[in-house]
């Protein structure tokens, strides 16, 4: 017994040694951002301010937008359809992916629509959506939903098909009903895939939000982008763009945190042993 425990500890020691070597990752990331910002600042200043901008000018524009209160209002306005559309995409995409992955009939009947939907040129369909849903909140949430539901669904679907057959047989051999196998074996085994799909969908949802603001009622952060572009105020135009990218990074990190909370075994099992 002690031998078993000892050998376990030994392998863990080796793993720790392999991953803890070198500079902390956040320092590498921070240095990379700093270098890029400096280079942008250095070369950006030489460019005509209509054709480009640079970090300090963008920061100045950011501060002006914050002081006038415009940025906060626009962000709130954009976030509402974003949260609703993205939330609904998770609520529909995950169960749909589970069902398609689990049942052959569902896969044969619905799989093609999901695959096709993922490649749907949504921008082209926005005018049609406007006809159906009007120009307001609903159409924006719908665009966000349609852009993000498919990657979530496809990833869940793939995850279900990747669940080891042996784990499902464990359920069967203990006479677990189908619903229990789906909820207590397939769902947890698929969680890492679901979380990956939810992460992938962040980027698409952000893009969808801006598209919706461009092509329906011009509002929110999209409005700041369009209006400042029309005024050749490139620095101001970059403020929401940079902000959205930062927001996507933050959201991604948040989802990673949630993933480690709901699926802690995954982070512990999965190999982070990379060069």
């Amino acid at each position, binding site marked *: 017994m002690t031998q*078993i425990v000892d050998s376990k500890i030994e392998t863990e020691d080796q793993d720790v040694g392999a991953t803890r070597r070198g500079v902390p990752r956040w320092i590498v990331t921070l240095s990379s951002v700093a270098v890029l910002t400096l280079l942008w600042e250095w070369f950006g200043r030489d460019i005509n301010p209509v054709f480009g901008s640079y970090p300090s000018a963008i920061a100045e524009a950011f501060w002006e937008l914050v002081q006038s209160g415009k940025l906060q209002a626009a962000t709130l306005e954009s976030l509402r359809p974003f949260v609703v559309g993205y939330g609904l995409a998770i609520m529909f995409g995950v169960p749909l992916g589970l069902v398609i992955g689990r049942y052959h009939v569902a896969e044969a009947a619905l799989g093609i629509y999901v695959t096709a939907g993922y490649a749907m040129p949504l921008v082209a369909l926005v005018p049609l959506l406007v006809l159906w849903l009007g120009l307001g909140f609903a159409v924006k949430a719908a665009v966000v939903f349609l852009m993000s539901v498919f990657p979530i669904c496809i990833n869940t679907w793939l995850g279900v098909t990747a669940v080891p057959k042996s784990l499902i047989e464990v359920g069967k*051999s*203990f*006479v677990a009903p189908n619903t229990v196998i789906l909820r207590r074996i397939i769902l947890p085994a698929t*969680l890492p895939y679901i979380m990956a799909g939810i992460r992938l969908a962040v980027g698409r949802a952000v893009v969808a939000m801006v598209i919706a603001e461009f092509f329906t009622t011009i509002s929110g952060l999209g409005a700041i982008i369009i209006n400042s572009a029309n005024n050749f105020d490139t620095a101001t135009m970059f403020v929401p763009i940079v902000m959205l990218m930062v927001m996507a990074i933050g959201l991604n990190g948040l989802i990673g945190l949630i993933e480690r909370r709901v699926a802690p*075994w995954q982070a512990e*099992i999965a190999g982070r042993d990379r060069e």
Partner: protein
Amino acid sequence: MLMAVKTARQPPLAADRSTAPLAIDAAGVSLTFATADGTVEALSGIDLQIAAGEFVSLIGPSGCGKTTALRIAMGLELATSGRVTVDGRAVKGCGHDRGMVFQHAELLPWLTAMQNVMFGLEMKGMRGAKLRATAENYLDLVGLGSSRNRRPHQLSGGMQQRVGIARALAIDPKVLLMDEPFGALDAQTRETMQEELLQIHARTKKTILFVTHDLDEAVLIADRIVIMRDGRIQEILQVPLPRPRGDLGVVRGTKEFAETRYHVWKSLHAAPDTPTVH
């Protein structure tokens, strides 16, 4: 082949057919499946009777159908023809009267050892304080009481398989079906597990059907050895070692062990379709 038929029809150990039904009774079990190259016969005409409390090991080379036979007994696969009964009831699917121990333990990685054992019990409808107490009991039985809150990846291979055994035993099945459970363990751990399994067998009196490809293991732990080849039973052999067997290291040194081992070895190495000669 003649020999096999004759031994197969011998009454199994300690069987009292008038009062207790056989723990496992397989008659003419065959399984064929279609492939691109035509139909393949995975099992053909398996007849096997196992008495309650008996410990039988199924041995044979890879692809001989031993795991398939076990899966049919479990109800994970259905025979094309023939009939299997467990404790007098025909097998039509999985049931709580059979407990399966898988080759690689197959614990649910998101559950602790305790929750893994509880999973099987919950499927049987057990709830509340009794559920926890039963699970704790069986984890204690396999010597894992202190590790009950660890997740599978925090356990060694041997410990994982102990949890697998506890999970199967906890539902109090009539029959324990084990599919090469110690095959992936290192030699030392395997020996410890074999001794512990024998102790568990002595204590719980469960009927055990144990698939293995390890000749020594088959002889050390079983009452009877079923030697399989090409989907058929080649020979059934009574192991002349008394119970309890105690220290398996000592058992290995006995004449009976050596003789039985040699007999099984010869049978496994006999040319196909050649009857074993004694």
